């Protein structure tokens, strides 16, 4: 019965595989939480300002930077993504143009984040002369997140049953009215869920923002054109400069799941 023995063997192998993967990954996750948790929950840490040379200190400006960046970036990418999703799901026909757009989206999706960072540097920081600021980072991240956000948004719209569109049009609504008053509102829950992944991406992204937003600041950024230091970038910067206190868990915190 080699068939049955092979099946048993295979099952065992796969169980070992599965367990190994879980153990390794679980270990990583637990370690990260365990090591950072105490520091992360210290109020001085969360609300204090960072020490410039000594290292350590608080990360409040960084947290503010990150939140600010998330908000700005979403304000930029949501309308564009919804618009593009509307085009792809309601208007586009299968053809070369649509295929080409998807090719561009795939390319954007695989591009290394540091390429986005350098691009943002070249275009927003230098060419537009915005200098290191939140806006530069927000725009860069908006382009970076476009494929991700678009995928979720488009899916949400495709899930809206055709029968709603038919009902609306049979009542004498134009296509745009139908989209605006029936399709998009129906897809809203799905669209909101679709923003979770991009938000996670923005919070964790370092390579794309260190060249666009900034690395170290002492004060809270207020104006979108202020320099800022989002958490992930700061973590890398602090580590490279060899400073103490790590804030892993604070970065681990705002993660979806």
């Amino acid at each position, binding site marked *: 019965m080699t*068939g049955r023995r*092979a*099946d048993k063997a*295979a*099952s065992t192998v*796969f*169980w070992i*595989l*599965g367990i190994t*993967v*879980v153990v390794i*990954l*679980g270990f*990583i*996750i637990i370690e*990260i939480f365990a090591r950072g948790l105490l520091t992360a929950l210290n109020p001085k840490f969360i609300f204090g300002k960072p020490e410039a040379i000594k290292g350590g200190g608080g990360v409040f400006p960084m947290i503010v930077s990150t939140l600010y960046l998330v908000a700005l970036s979403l304000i930029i990418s949501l309308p564009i*993504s919804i*618009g*593009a999703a*509307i*085009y792809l799901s*309601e*208007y586009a026909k299968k053809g070369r143009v649509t295929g*080409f*757009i998807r*090719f*561009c989206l*795939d*390319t954007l999706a*695989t*591009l*290394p984040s*540091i*390429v986005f960072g*350098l*691009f943002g540097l*070249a*275009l927003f920081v230098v*060419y537009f002369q915005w200098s290191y600021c939140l806006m530069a980072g927000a725009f860069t991240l908006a*382009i970076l997140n*476009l494929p991700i956000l*678009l995928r979720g948004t488009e899916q949400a719209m495709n899930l809206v049953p055709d029968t709603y569109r038919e009902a609306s049009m049979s009542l004498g609504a134009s*296509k*745009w009215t139908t989209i605006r008053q029936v399709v998009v509102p129906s897809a809203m829950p799905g669209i909101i869920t679709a923003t979770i992944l991009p938000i*996670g991406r923005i919070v*964790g*992204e*370092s*390579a794309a923002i260190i*060249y666009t937003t900034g690395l170290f600041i002492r004060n809270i950024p207020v104006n979108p054109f202020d320099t800022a230091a989002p958490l*992930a970038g700061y*973590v*890398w910067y602090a*580590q490279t400069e060899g400073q103490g206190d*790590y804030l*892993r868990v604070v*970065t*681990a915190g705002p*993660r979806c*799941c």
Partner: protein
Amino acid sequence: MRAIVTGDRDRWVKLVMFCCASVSFVGVLLIFLFIFRESLPAITKVGIPKLFLSTDWRPKSGHYGMLAFTFGTVFTTVVAMVIAAPLGIGAAVFIDQIAPEKVGKGVRRVIELLAGIPSVVIGWFALILLVPFIRSVTGSSGFGMLAASLVLVVMSLPTITTLSAESLRAVPVELKEASAAMGATRWQSIYKIMIPSAREGLIIAVILGMGRAIGETMAVQMVIGNASQATASLLQPGSTLTTRIVQDMGEASGVFRSALFAQALMLLLLSVFLIISIRLISRERKHA
């Protein structure tokens, strides 16, 4: 009867939406244009052969050959895939076929969680745990290509696993049922029917995992040692295209800076190459 001309409004709306969709095209174009523009000084001053095909990287004396780093990228990625591909596909098979539903869900959760961890966090973790571990086991510094490859395994695993699981799920249930009805064991059904059916999807999953690995910057930079020679030895430090950029960009100016942009250009070309490969594979499937 009122004649409402709504046709015009619809056409205008379609145009606006199309513009939104073409942000994708405009984005890619701008990225290519600006990266190219910034690399131009290096390309013209150093010349394409010396820039892309030389391993001589001594910026202080005007030598900007990036081949060592291109090799570093390829090497670490290949090593990582050798480990991550079977692991990822195996995990996918496990989740989709072998594990009971609750266990499968649990494993999927863990992997999703991992996917959300920022690069710097994984990098730091590797720094304080993986590097000392390698050091104690091998006697080397701990920094180097091995550490880098292992980090890449961790970072690309979620991508490979998730996409592979999706491909397996897309195989019609009828195929598996037909196989079972002929008396095949579960493993035989998986091995002979499901995996071959999902083959294109699995290959694409691995390619996208490669894309992830190629583009990974921070985590790798923390553990790779950042040396500028090409090395095929796992225990020696080295650099990849991405880590070199992030390592040197801070102090670079002029042609040096431009050479780093040229490396970004190289990365851009690699990504496009991957996407084209995926398209070709998908097209082949349609004709098959």
